[in-house]
């Protein structure tokens, strides 16, 4: 069965050109960039090139890029650094809808005596900037807020947030794992101090990430033990993946318009057709600015895992905003924070597209999903009168 992959916020296909670029650095050009000989030196040059390519996508300077193993490491490095460079500041601000990489760390720090403010979001998934303004003070070490939400695609007003944070001298970190490659960025004109990105969300392999660190922002390394990355991240460089990330960032720049036009049009058509064909479906974050590739839909009276497995039978690979898949029994913390009612929080499905998706694939999802929802609703003990009335 040919897969129809619409789970690109989970991970993406490695681009053929990216793979071709990294391939020689396993068996042929396997030198250590730190070596004195030519064999390592030629790898160092490719790593430098990759750093320039990542910096170019972000509108940053190459020495502001630190390669890490993943988005989670970048998030951990940023927040742990901030509390070390500001030992007298004991307050951290984040939001209720962050990725667990940020949220779990902040909650662990709360147990160690930090005051942690988790900002609320409204029904559309947006922050109340007044709440942020009231929360940030001279005790705040770092404000960590995501650029775009992985489940709903909702985009936070990052520059407005940055301006508020800077008033009180706190550091501003953003987890931009879902935004990089989809939203044009220009660090040179930004108030962001640190930004996390992940390779496998933009067609590079898994296991490579980067942290943007603004020049002049104090930093304490998370990993120590070697001089790599200018003493900011010890450990032998993952050369092949770094080179892959560089290529992927270059391609992301090239495909940014495609992402925002063609992919967005596919998403919009999927959204319009599904909500027209399926009664009692709502768009999570529908009232907010969203990533061009993400659609989170809530279907009342059905459960997400059952929808996903029936879609999987048709070759359609999507993801659930709900619980069962992740092992937690609560519906997604993001949807709960948005106040999505229980009647549909359990039945939320996320479609996340990429440049590889086609019109024909979207047609197939539009054809296959409505009968799946209908079938599960017919099986459900809930909403029978409600649905009968609307049919």
């Amino acid at each position, binding site marked *: 069965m040919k897969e129809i992959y619409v789970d690109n916020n989970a991970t993406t296909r490695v681009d053929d050109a990216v793979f071709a670029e990294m391939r020689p650095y396993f068996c042929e050009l396997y030198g250590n960039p730190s070596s004195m000989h030519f064999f390592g030196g030629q790898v160092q040059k490719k790593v430098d090139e990759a750093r320039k390519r990542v910096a170019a996508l972000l509108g940053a300077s190459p020495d502001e890029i630190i390669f890490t193993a993943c988005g989670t490491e970048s998030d951990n490095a940023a927040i742990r650094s901030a509390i070390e460079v500001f030992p007298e500041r004991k307050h951290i601000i984040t939001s209720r809808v962050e990725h667990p990489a940020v949220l779990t760390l902040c909650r662990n720090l709360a147990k160690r005596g930090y005051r942690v403010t988790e900002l609320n979001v409204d029904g559309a998934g947006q922050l109340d900037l007044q709440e942020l303004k009231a929360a940030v003070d001279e005790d705040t070490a770092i404000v960590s807020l995501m650029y775009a939400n992985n489940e709903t695609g909702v985009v936070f007003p990052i520059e407005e947030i940055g301006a508020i944070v800077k008033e009180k001298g706190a550091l501003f970190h953003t987890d931009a794992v879902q935004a990089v490659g989809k939203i044009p960025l220009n660090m040179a004109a930004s108030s962001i101090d640190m930004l996390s990105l992940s390779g496998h969300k933009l067609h590079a392999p898994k296991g490579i990430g980067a942290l943007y660190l603004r020049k002049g922002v104090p930093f304490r390394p998370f990993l120590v033990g070697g001089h790599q990355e200018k003493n900011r991240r010890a450990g032998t460089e993952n050369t092949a993946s770094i080179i892959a990330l560089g290529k992927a960032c270059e391609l992301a720049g090239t495909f940014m318009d495609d992402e925002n036009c063609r992919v967005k049009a596919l998403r919009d058509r999927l959204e319009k057709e599904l909500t027209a064909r399926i009664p009692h479906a709502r768009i999570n974050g529908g009232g907010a600015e969203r990533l061009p590739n993400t659609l989170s839909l809530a279907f009342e*009276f*059905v*459960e*997400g*895992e*059952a929808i996903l*497995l*029936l879609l999987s*039978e048709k070759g359609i690979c999507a993801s659930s905003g*709900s*619980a*069962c898949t992740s*092992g*937690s*029994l*609560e*519906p997604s913390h993001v949807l709960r924070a948005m106040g999505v009612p*229980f*009647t549909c929080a*359990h039945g939320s499905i996320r479609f996340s597209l990429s440049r590889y998706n086609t019109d024909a694939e979207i047609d197939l999802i539009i054809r296959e999903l409505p009968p799946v929802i209908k079938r599960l609703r*017919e*099986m*459900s*003990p*809930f909403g029978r009168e409600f649905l009968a009335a609307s049919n």
Partner: protein
Amino acid sequence: MWDYTDKVKEHFLNPRNVGAIDDADAVGEVGSLACGDALKLYLKLDPNKERIVDAKFQTFGCASAIASSSALTEMVKGKTLEEALHISNQEIAEFLGGLPEEKMHCSVMGQEALEAAIAKYRGEEAPAHDHDHEHAVMEGEVVCKCFGLTDVFLKKVIAANKLTTAEQVTHFTKAGGGCGGCIPRIKELIAEVMGAEPQVAPKRPEKLTNLRKMQLIQETLEKEIRPLLWADGGDLELIDIDGGKVQVAFRKACAGCASSGFTVRTVEQKLRELVSADITVEEVEG
């Protein structure tokens, strides 16, 4: 992705007996939209009101909830009410070739719905563990506020499934799977149940299903045999169970010890005594 058995997948993709029975004799409802799964079970009895002649279900939930409901309706048909009441959640899981432990709560939900339906038919009060938030007459103190589960219900499931950790209780009942605030209380309940009952049944159960036999072998190894070995600085690991054949590997002081032949026999003797007479134990390298 969950590692569902082919039988679970088959019952999920082609569920038997979906729907309602308009003139049902007994209807049992458990769960709610908030909980993330719910089951409404309909039973139709023969004219003498003794045997179940038809069963149907409506389920809101994940694949294993739908498969468990389908299995339950197949299992109860043809049984008397008394026989049906003896169906345990383990038997529902076993009918499906087993469920991932995280999904055992689906089998518990099936058993609950069956009890609720029969109790209602007999005019009894709704069972204590009926955790439908809106209608339940609940007995005992609510322990898990997220899913509305009482101590009486949790202790029953802990005892019936011989659960020993809070994580297992979450997998079997969902209690503690929301905010997690009740996990300390769940641990107390486990201690209460374990204190009240001997950890291994003193006599062998009469009829052992394969699943129960494997569970009992594991429990006996954990609670009766390994502690004896620890006393001598040794340990053993269960490698495999195939019918009555149990393979173990010895660790630490026991591994390679000349007297381990004696130890294999001791393990076998103990398992025959406490689980089943047809068990053979052999030592393998693991």
